[in-house]
């Protein structure tokens, strides 16, 4: 406990923990490991046995450099404003650690570390951040309270320094700072801390969610972990889809219309992300839904699902509840075929009616509910262009269907053998090829699919899916590559699938009959399961434990929404919430349709007016105080007779002398007469003492003798002052060079 009795140590720890918090939130390991040594070095440089701060000029130069760099960064990319400002704060904190240590500077350090933490909260919601916050906040409260004691002690010590040594010894103060960390202090810190936490929890619970959300623009909800999403292009042989990371990206709950959990019945679930139908130069791209067949723009709301293509979900629909940690802009995951969708907040999205591909610009933490059915789409669809209608892939396809006795005319869009042919290709690939997550790049002018089928015969899911789609397209069947997630890790206790980054997968959809697209996964399932299986052993157990705690954190803190609030508060909360939601929901709905509600406009204007009034009021108050001070000084300068003004001018010279002596380290003790002090300077510099004595005598003659100083005397006094300044500068130079003062 003695360790925490030192304010300097607590401040040092608080600042370091603040930087750690931000590094965790920003995921910037380099920042942390770069800042940590500097932070540690600052203690030894400034607080060590010979510690002293860096020169002010150097401090100023570093601040200017940091400011310029941050300004350039922000100007280049405005979306990086919050992270850039937070990093700027980190640099300022590090620079400040090497600056002089006065109570005011220490308070500034404390406040800057708090701003860093606020920046961290704006950047991330991870469990690691939550744990770091749980450590930081008590330490900050402790340090802030210690600061009040420290600042008061320093203030009293400064006032005592003005006294004579004998008088200082006579003074009785209260107990020393070293004994302050007592039971009483711990009790008070705990009381203040818990009281503040109680109020925080109350505010957290009673504040309605979703009212006036995004009313001031899209402040994106901070994310947890890396972004989850799929691009509309996959290049074979290049890094992209695959990941071995076990970081959870989303949780999925499957149920039917009656609320029964469908998880145990489904070992693996293919969650569609991007649907890629065009293959050019080793890359799959999405073309469906563009050009003439454009996607439809729709809106989704929390309280009512949006029907896709005008049809309600059938009774046998599978309901998927997705809980994204950090959804990227783009594809919305769903089982084939989605018919209904709802979001946790008002969201715009696009639907391709042909493929039922869903995409949205919304990102961050999201809860999406999708209803899907396996019934086919009863509509005509344009045929896809043939791929590989000649060459080795075509020949392989023909060979396989011939060997299986499943002939097919390539000119036909559909053939009764199509499902069997697709199954044939799937089995061929899964049985005859090896699965590996190792990346292999094709040679120049070598097609990646041909490389996989005829040379390496080993690859990952993208190759397997691409090869199957290529074989199908070569025999005239419509096929496309789908990227998404393969959910296989089912948690029976929680009743949901835990989908991780390593569950990213690719498979094939084949148009087996009019309007019916079937899912085929040619990748060897056993090998895929091994590759995607979460780690075991102690590490696996720790990982599961961490994920369980993180789940609680996300559910009860990060994802605390209106429903959670109503469950926590009961009827009273529901009524209050309904009233505000009625106001907020209507307002947001109006803004979704492009019209800003009068209520929102009025609220924003009122808020702006309040802010302006507050700013102007504060400015006026401080200006008035400054003006009053200036008038008092001016009155004291110009009041009185001409003799009084001359006296004041002479007195200004004397004050200037005292000021310069003080700056040079020759401050006159309060109990020592000025003339005596001036004469005592001859131990340092005889000429300095003479000049100072002359100036003091001039001052005495003017004030005590009531003889007004003439202009010539004032000029002489100013000349004396200049010579004194020159002697003081020479003395400083000699001291810097280690020379002895002149005899």
């Amino acid at each position: 406990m003695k360790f925490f009795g030192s304010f300097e140590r607590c401040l040092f720890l608080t600042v370091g923990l603040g930087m750690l918090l931000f590094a965790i939130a920003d995921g910037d390991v380099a920042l942390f490991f770069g800042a940590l040594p500097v932070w540690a070095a600052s203690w030894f440089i400034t607080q060590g046995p010979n510690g002293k701060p860096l020169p002010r000029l150097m401090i100023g130069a570093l601040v200017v450099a940091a400011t310029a760099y941050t300004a350039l960064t922000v100007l280049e990319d405005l979306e990086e404003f919050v992270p850039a400002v937070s990093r700027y704060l980190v640099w300022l904190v590090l620079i400040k650690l090497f600056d002089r240590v006065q109570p005011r500077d220490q308070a500034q350090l404390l406040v800057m570390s708090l701003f860093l933490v606020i920046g961290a909260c704006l950047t991330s919601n991870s469990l690691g951040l939550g744990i770091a916050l749980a450590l930081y906040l008590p330490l900050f409260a402790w340090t802030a309270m210690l600061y009040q004691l420290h600042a008061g002690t320093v203030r009293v010590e400064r006032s005592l320094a003005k006294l004579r040594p004998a008088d200082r010894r006579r003074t009785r103060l209260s107990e020393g700072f070293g004994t302050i960390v007592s039971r009483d202090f711990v009790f008070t810190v705990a009381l203040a801390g818990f009281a503040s936490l109680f109020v925080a929890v109350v505010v957290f619970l009673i504040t309605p969610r979703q009212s006036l959300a995004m009313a001031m623009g899209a402040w994106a909800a901070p994310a947890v972990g890396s972004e989850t999403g799929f691009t509309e292009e996959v290049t074979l042989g290049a890094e992209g889809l695959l990941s071995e990371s076990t970081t959870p990206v989303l949780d999925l709950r499957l149920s039917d219309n009656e609320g029964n959990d469908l998880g145990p019945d489904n070992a693996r679930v293919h969650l569609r992300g991007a649907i890629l139908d065009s293959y050019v130069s080793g890359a799959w791209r999405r073309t469906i839904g563009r050009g003439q067949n454009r996607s439809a723009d729709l809106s989704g709301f929390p309280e009512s699902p949006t029907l896709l293509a005008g049809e309600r979900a059938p009774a046998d629909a599978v309901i998927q509840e997705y809980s994204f940690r950090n959804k990227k802009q783009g594809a919305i995951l769903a089982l084939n075929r989605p018919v209904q969708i709802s979001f946790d907040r008002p969201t715009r999205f696009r639907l391709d009616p042909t493929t039922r591909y869903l995409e949205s610009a919304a990102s961050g933490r999201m809860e999406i509910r999708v209803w899907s059915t396996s019934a086919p789409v009863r509509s005509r669809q344009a045929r896809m262009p043939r791929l590989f209608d000649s060459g080795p892939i075509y020949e392989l396809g023909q060979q396989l269907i011939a060997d299986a006795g499943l002939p097919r005319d390539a000119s036909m869009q559909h053939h009764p053998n199509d499902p069997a042919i697709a199954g044939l290709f799937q089995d061929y690939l899964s049985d005859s090829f090896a699965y590996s997550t190792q990346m292999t790049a094709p040679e120049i002018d070598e097609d990646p699919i041909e490389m996989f089928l005829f040379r390496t015969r080993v690859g990952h899911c993208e190759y397997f899916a691409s090869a199957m789609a290529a074989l199908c397209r070569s025999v005239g069947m419509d096929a496309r590559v789908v990227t998404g997630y393969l959910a296989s890790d089912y948690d029976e206790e929680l009743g949901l699938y835990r989908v991780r980054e390593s569950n990213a997968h690719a498979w094939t959809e084949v148009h087996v009959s009019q309007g019916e697209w079937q899912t085929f996964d040619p990748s060897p399932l056993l090998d895929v399961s091994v590759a995607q299986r979460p780690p075991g052993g102690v590490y696996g157990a720790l990982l599961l434990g961490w994920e369980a705690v993180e789940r609680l954190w996300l559910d009860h803190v990060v994802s605390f929404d209106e429903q959670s609030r109503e469950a926590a508060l009961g009827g009273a909360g529901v009524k209050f919430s309904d009233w505000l939601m009625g106001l907020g929901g209507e307002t947001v709905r109006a803004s979704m349709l492009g019209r800003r509600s009068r209520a929102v406009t009025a609220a924003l204007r009122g808020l702006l007016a309040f802010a302006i009034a507050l700013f102007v009021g504060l400015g006026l108050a401080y200006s008035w105080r400054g003006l009053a001070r200036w008038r008092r000084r001016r009155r004291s300068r110009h009041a009185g007779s001409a003799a009084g003004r001359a006296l004041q001018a002479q007195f200004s010279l004397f004050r200037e002398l005292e000021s310069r002596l003080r700056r040079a380290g020759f401050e006159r003790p309060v109990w020592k007469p000025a003339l005596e002090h001036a004469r005592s300077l001859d131990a340092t510099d005889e000429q300095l003492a003479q000049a100072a004595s002359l100036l003091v005598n001039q001052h005495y003659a003017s004030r005590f003798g009531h003889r007004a100083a003439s202009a010539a005397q004032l000029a002489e006094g100013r000349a004396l002052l200049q010579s004194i300044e020159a002697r003081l500068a020479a003395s400083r130079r000699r001291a810097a060079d280690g020379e002895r003062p002149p005899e």
Partner: protein
Amino acid sequence: MTAARRQYHASSAGLIYLLVSVFLGIGAVNSQNNLLFLAFGLALGALLVSGLVSGIMLLNLEVEREAPMPTTVGDAMLLRYRVVNRSRRIPAFALRISEARPKRGWKRRRDADDWARYFDAPETFILHLGRGRSAFVDAMTPAMARGEARLNQIRIDTRFPFGIIRKSVVFEQAARVLVRPEPIVVEGMRQLTASAFDMRNSGERPVSGRGLEYLGVREYAPGDARRMIAWRASARRGDLIVREHMTPTPERTTICLDLTQKEELHEEASLLRRSHNAHRSEDAGERAISMAAWMIQQAVRHGHDIAVEVPAAEIRTGFGTAGQPGAPVSTRWTGALLDTLARIDRTSLSGGGANARGLQKSASLIVIHDGDWSASDWPTGAIHLSAARMDALPEDQSVTSDEQVAHEGAAA
């Protein structure tokens, strides 16, 4: 003593804190970031707790100031406080105790006896005061000016726990404290006063004491010193007899302060006065009073009985041994004389030399002027000193011309 009022004080730190809290609230509502909701709640909670804790802490405090002792210009003014925490549950931390001044209207006007004219704001600090405990703490501040200062109120304030809000409580407790003039010696005064405070006794009184003159004999009483026994007389009588001697009579000296220059009680003067940290005798009148203070100390040191007269202020103290002729001068009398000097109000002087002829009779008369004077206004034989002209010699003095040359050389 009653608590006058409790106050909350706004500060720039508190305003900034408020603005940041508002920003957090707006950000939380707009972004629906639950961590920001928590942060906003914590900010509100800290604000509430800051006001509540400081208020509860001050609610149970009492403070009492001990009667301040007189001090001297240039010395430290010591104010001792006793602070009691009557709460059984809440300890007190970071208490700042200081002297408060009553506000009059929207503008603070300084009265003549406002303590701010005499010393800087005294303040002290209590780190920790436990439940049901009391503590004595001292506040020291250099005394800057002579006079009688009035202390009005004691303020206890604190920013604990988070420094967001400063709360204070003011207790009414009036007191007066004297700041005596600082004894100063001008070059040449020592020589001049040596002749006035001659060590030779000028007389003795017929009271048994330690003088040289024979008083008589008496019977021996238990406790008498053996050396006082007159052995031959005792042998003749057959009983023990002791000898008695007379008590020396202290020389009487009158110190007269010829103050003719009124003090201007406006802001410029006080500004000039307060800016000179050491000696507060920044004008001739104050220097004259300071010189008189030194004189008094020297006189008592030499066993003289002193009386002080200030004709312009109608002050006449009389001698310390008045009513007790031949009694020794006590140190309490020195203090009383210095207190008299401290109480001289130079803002209401009525004129000087006109009353000079009514001075008390004494062996020596030392007149200290704050400006020029006319010899005809003063009794002959008086020693004159001028506080206005440091390099000028008094007109009527016994210093020889050689001593005068030496004095001029020392002054240069």
